[in-house]
C-alpha cells in the first residue's frame, strides 16, 4: 500500500515510525517541541523529544556522546550550513570515534538538515555544503530526491549504526509523491535509475533530480532518450551503477546545485574518468562560482536550471559516443 504524501511529511513519517519501533531513538533540536501541545512531544514524551538552544556544537556533540552510550539520536539542525559552526563534531568526531576505539564503540547518529534553499536567503543560508562531508571514512551522507526515498532513506539512516548526515532539499519540501505505507527502508549506498534511457546519462542530486527529470522530458520530445541516475547517497557512493549507465550511454552530464569545485558532481566525474575509460564526453552543470546572491535575477542566474541541463545534454549529443 502506498499513499500520496509530501516530501516533508514522508520524512516526518519515517521519524515517527522509527521512534515507535525503537525506544532508543530520540529527537531534538532548536525551535521544535516548544509546548506541551507539540504532537511529537505528546506521542513520545519529553525525555525523547526536546528543544535545544542555538548551540550546534553541543547539540551534535551531545548526540555523538549519547550515540556512543546506547541511544540513537536524531538531531534536527534545520539549515545544513548551521552544522558548520560544529563541523569538527560532524567530520572529525562522529566518524572517527569507532575507528580510534578499535571497533569498540559505534555512533548511530542522524544529523538532519535541509539544504540549498534558493529562495532569497542570500549568501549564508542557501548553499550546498555536502561535498565537505563526502569521502569522510565512517560518515554517510544521504540526499533524497523524492518523497518515497525521503521516507525509506530516513528509516535506513536511523537504523544505521554509523553517523549519517541526512540532507533534504528545502526546495522539494512540498513536492508530492507516492510513499509506501509502513516499513519501508531504502538501503544506503544504492543509486536509483529514476528514468531509464539509452542516449545519455544524467547524474543529478537532490533537487537537481527533479530538474533533470523535467529536462529529460523535454529532451524526449526532441528524440533524445536520457537516463537519469540519482545516487541518493553521496557516501557510500554507488559508483558501479553510475559507471554502468555511463558505459551504456557513452555520454554523461552531471548536475549539481553547488559550485563546480565544491560539487559532488566533480567527484563523481573523477570516478567516471577513472572507470569509464572510453567515455568521450562529459559535462558538468553546476552553480556558477559565486555565493548565493539575494536578488532573484542574480540567484536564478547562479543556480543550475532545466535550460542549462538541456543545453549540456545537446552539447554532449553532438559528440560521437564510443561505447558499444
Amino acid at each position, binding site marked *: 500500500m502506498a499513499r500520496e504524501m509530501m516530501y516533508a511529511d514522508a520524512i516526518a513519517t519515517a521519524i515517527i515510525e522509527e521512534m515507535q519501533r525503537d525506544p532508543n531513538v530520540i529527537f531534538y533540536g*532548536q525551535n521544535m517541541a*516548544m509546548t506541551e501541545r507539540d504532537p511529537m512531544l505528546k506521542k513520545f514524551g519529553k525525555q525523547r523529544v526536546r528543544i535545544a*538552544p542555538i548551540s550546534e556544537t553541543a547539540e551534535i556533540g551531545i548526540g555523538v556522546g549519547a550515540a556512543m552510550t546506547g541511544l540513537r539520536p536524531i538531531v534536527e539542525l534545520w539549515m545544513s550550513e548551521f552544522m558548520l559552526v560544529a563541523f569538527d563534531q560532524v567530520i572529525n568526531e562522529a566518524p572517527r570515534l569507532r575507528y580510534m576505539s578499535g571497533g569498540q564503540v559505534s555512533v548511530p547518529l542522524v544529523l538532519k538538515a535541509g539544504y540549498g534553499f534558493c529562495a*532569497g536567503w*542570500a549568501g549564508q*543560508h542557501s548553499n550546498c555544503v555536502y561535498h565537505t562531508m563526502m569521502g569522510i571514512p565512517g560518515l554517510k551522507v544521504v540526499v533524497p530526491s523524492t518523497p518515497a526515498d525521503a521516507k525509506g532513506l530516513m528509516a535506513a539512516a536511523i537504523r544505521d549504526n554509523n553517523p549519517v548526515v541526512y540532507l533534504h532539499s528545502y526546495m522539494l519540501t512540498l513536492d508530492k509523491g507516492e510513499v509506501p505505507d509502513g516499513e519501508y527502508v531504502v538501503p544506503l549506498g544504492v543509486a536509483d535509475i529514476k528514468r531509464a534511457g539509452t542516449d545519455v546519462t544524467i547524474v543529478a542530486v537532490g533537487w537537481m533530480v527533479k530538474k533533470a527529470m523535467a529536462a529529460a522530458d523535454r529532451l524526449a520530445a526532441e528524440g533524445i532518450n536520457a537516463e537519469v541516475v540519482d545516487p541518493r547517497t553521496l557516501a557510500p557512493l554507488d559508483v558501479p551503477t553510475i559507471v554502468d549507465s555511463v558505459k551504456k550511454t557513452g555520454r554523461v552530464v552531471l548536475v549539481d546545485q553547488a559550485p563546480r569545485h565544491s560539487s559532488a558532481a566533480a567527484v563523481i566525474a573523477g570516478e567516471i574518468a577513472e572507470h569509464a575509460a572510453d567515455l568521450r564526453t562529459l559535462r558538468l552543470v553546476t552553480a556558477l562560482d559565486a555565493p548565493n546572491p*539575494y536578488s532573484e535575477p*542574480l540567484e536564478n542566474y547562479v543556480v543550475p536550471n532545466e535550460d542549462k541541463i538541456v543545453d549540456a545534454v545537446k552539447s554532449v549529443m553532438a559528440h560521437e559516443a564510443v561505447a558499444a
Partner: protein
Amino acid sequence: MPRKTAGKSLTRKARTGSDQLQWMYTQMVRIREFEEAVKRTFIEHPGVIRGHSHLGDGAEASIVGALSTRHDADIVMPSYRCHGYPVVLGTPLRKIMAEVFGRRDGLCHGFGGSMHLSDPSRYFPGTSGIIGQAIAHATGAALTAQVKNSGQIVYCFFGDGASKQGAFFESLNMAAVWKLPIVYVLENNQYQAYTHFSLEDANAVAGDPLSKKADAFSIPGVTVDGTDPVAVQKVVAKAADRARAGKGPSLVETKFYRLSAHGNVITVPPLSTQFPDHEAVAVYGNRKEFEHWKAKDPVKRFRARLLKNRALTEPSAKRIEAAARAEVEDAVQFALASPLPAPEEALQYVYA
C-alpha cells in the same frame, strides 16, 4: 573603512536636555516606521521581498539608547536583524529599503538583502546570518581599533539566542584578556525565533538575568530595561566610557520584547509570505504576555513620557512622525522604482 580619531559625537553634544531626547524619539520613530513599511510590503506588494526578513520593532529604545552614546567614528556591528542600526547611523532609507527589495540601488546592490545590510562608509561593516558569529567579527573590529590606536570603540549587538553560541563565550573571553574597546549589547527580546528564552538559557531557568554570564569573563554585566532609551543610554554610556578608557569590554543586557513575529513565514516559492502572529500567540497561545508587552511599546511610552515631561510638544511629536512617515514612503517608492540587478552581475564581488 574611513578612519577618524573619535570626534565629538553630534548626539553627545546634547546628551542631556530635550534636544537629545527629541533626537532619540525621532530615531525611534524612524525605525518603527521603516519596519512597519517592510511589514506592509508583504501585503501591499507580495513577492517583492524574498527570503527571510526580521524586524526591529520593540528594539527601538535599546538601539537608540545605546547608539546615543556613540562617537562619530565608532563602529556598529549588529546581528542579522539589522534594519534599525543604519537608520540611526544616517544611511539613506532609500538605500536600505532598496536593498530589502533586492534592487540595484540597494545598499549592497541586491546581493545582501534584509539580513546583510552593510554601510562601511558609516562605520557599519556588515552582518552575519549565522547566529553568534558576528560577535567575533565585532571583537575583531575592536582589535583593529586597538592596534591602530584609533580611539574608536565598537558597539556589538546580538540576541538572547546568540548568547548560547560558543562564539559568544570565546569572543568575550578574548576581548576581556586583550582589553578590547567594545560594548556587548545582549538584546534580550525574550525569543530566539520560536523559542522563549526561559526554555534554553540556564541563567533564566534559575531565575537569574542573562547578564550574569559576564562573570565567566570577570567583566561588568548589567541588565537594563530595554524599553527605556534613557535607562539604556545610562548603562551603555558607562560601558562605553570603560571601553574608551582602555579597560576592556562590558556586557549589557537590554531586556525588551520583539513586537512582531520572528520573521515572515518561511515558504517555498512561489507560495507567498507575510508576517504571522507573534509566537507568544501563534505558538504558545499566550495572548496575555503579548498584550502585556504591547502595552509597554517603547515608542509609545517614550512619546507619552516626553510629552508629560514637556521635552516634546504634541505638534512637534506629530511633525516628527509625519516626517518619518514621509521619509519611509519616499524610500518605498524609490525602492519600487529601482531596477532589479541584471543576472550577469551575479559574478561580481566574489573576489576583491
